[in-house]
């Protein structure tokens, strides 16, 4: 009896905690937005908002493939190779997770800015990096760097390298081995990592806020647009964009839930 009571008690605490912190707030925003759906639709279809979403998608479309390739290469290097500075690489790859996005943004700002190390050279050659798409892409790649590698590393360890060795002995080239043996065995981990990376790219705010200059209709992403609408007292507009971003987040959760069991089996 006491065991049952304490079990129910713990369940209540856990579910209450999730309801108060996560579900409640999100439900309110959904409810308020759909009370006046036409206003939300109007807010979403303004040229600036459409431009903001497009920009977010462009940045994500560049950052995700780059990070996927980089993540797989890094994971292979960390698990399969021995080289000098491996421990350092391992530490560096986790750093973007522990670092404040504002610090990331500021670092890039200082590197590519007018008086920065690269800024002078870029300026002379007429290449605009800061307050333009390139710096925003670089910032997004930076903050979402570790996700693919972190998912792939444990899977790669678990799979072991016997199959790769076998393929190699049977005369497969390194490239063939990678495509036919290694990649299929880590594919769910890669997909999982890609989903996490995509979510992070779509939602990036702090780093991009620093390097973009937040020029309306030019360097304003969807998340920056939420902030701008909020500060302009356009609550309906801020909510509407937030709802779209939240729906994407929910899709991400559904995808994660669908893939997780597969990953554990693989």
């Amino acid at each position: 009896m006491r065991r049952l009571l304490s079990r129910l008690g713990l369940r209540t605490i856990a579910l209450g905690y999730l309801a108060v912190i996560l579900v409640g707030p999100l439900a309110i925003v959904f409810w308020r937005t759909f009370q006046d759906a036409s206003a939300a639709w109007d807010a979403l279809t303004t040229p600036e908002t459409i431009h903001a979403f497009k920009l977010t998608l462009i940045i994500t479309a560049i950052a995700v493939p780059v990070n996927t390739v980089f993540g797989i290469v890094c994971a292979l290097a960390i698990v399969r190779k021995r080289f000098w500075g491996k421990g350092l690489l391992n530490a560096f790859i986790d750093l973007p997770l522990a670092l404040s996005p504002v610090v990331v943004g500021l670092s890039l700002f200082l590197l590519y800015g007018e008086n920065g190390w690269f800024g002078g050279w870029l300026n002379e050659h007429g290449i605009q990096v800061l307050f333009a798409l390139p710096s925003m892409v670089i910032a997004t790649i930076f903050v979402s760097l570790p996700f693919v590698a972190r998912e792939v590393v444990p899977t790669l360890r678990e799979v072991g390298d016997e199959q790769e060795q076998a393929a190699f002995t049977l005369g497969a080239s390194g490239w063939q081995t990678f495509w036919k043996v290694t990649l299929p065995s880590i594919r769910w981990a890669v997909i999982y990592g890609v989903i996490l990376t995509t979510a992070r790219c779509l939602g990036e705010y702090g780093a991009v806020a620093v390097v973009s200059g937040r020029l309306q209709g030019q360097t304003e992403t969807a998340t920056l647009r939420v902030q701008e609408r909020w500060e302009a007292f356009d609550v309906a507009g801020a909510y509407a964009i937030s709802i779209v971003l939240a729906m994407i987040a929910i899709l991400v959760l559904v995808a994660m839930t669908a893939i997780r069991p597969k990953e554990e089996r693989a």
Partner: protein
Amino acid sequence: MAFVGLPLAALMWEATSEGTQSFWDAVSSPEAVAALKLTLAASLGVSLLNAVLGTITAWVLIRDEFRGKVIVNAIIDLPFALPTIVAGLTLLALYGPTSPVGIDVAFSRTAIVLALMFVTLPFVVRTVQPVLQELDLEVEEAAHSLGASQTRTFVRVILPNILPGILSGVALAFAKAVGEFGSLVIITGNIPFQTEVSSVHIFGRIESGDSAGAAAVATVLLGISFLTLLSIGAIRHYATRHDR
């Protein structure tokens, strides 16, 4: 590595470009110190809350059975998937001036704790869950049948096993909390000496053109991040000591 290292080198270069004295002045200015104290206190408090609530949630997800558990398990990752700016906005909708439940914590320090709890929620749950899953239920039952009370079973049998998981989850949550920005800008009002945390303070300095000052405070945050990562590495090293 250059991709990560070069910008950070540029940051530290800028921080010390005007000499160590101006670095120290920027870091020890009253506003910067107040922001850093608030950041560390709030992050520490939220990390401890996470240790308790996260462990309970992980336990419920592994040992308890109820309808809709799959959905609850999926919702845990919501803070990973939801943009932080949206997180701040939704919290303000429920706990702000227009709150339907009559709780208004906007622009207060409670709001900071709330926002940080939101963004750090998954860490402890997700580091404890797999360890608890691996832990044999039989061990718990053995302790129980030998006459150990529930509390005693938890403290002597379960806790030693999941402690490394809790600690690394707490460290991750702490790192995230110290650097958090997006969810705080809307909900805290960014009032200096009251609700301004370090990341917001840095952003303010960038906006006002004081990039050396911003870089100095950012270097302190970078140091904290690095130390936290090191301690996570140490915890992992300790936790896997029997496997080596």
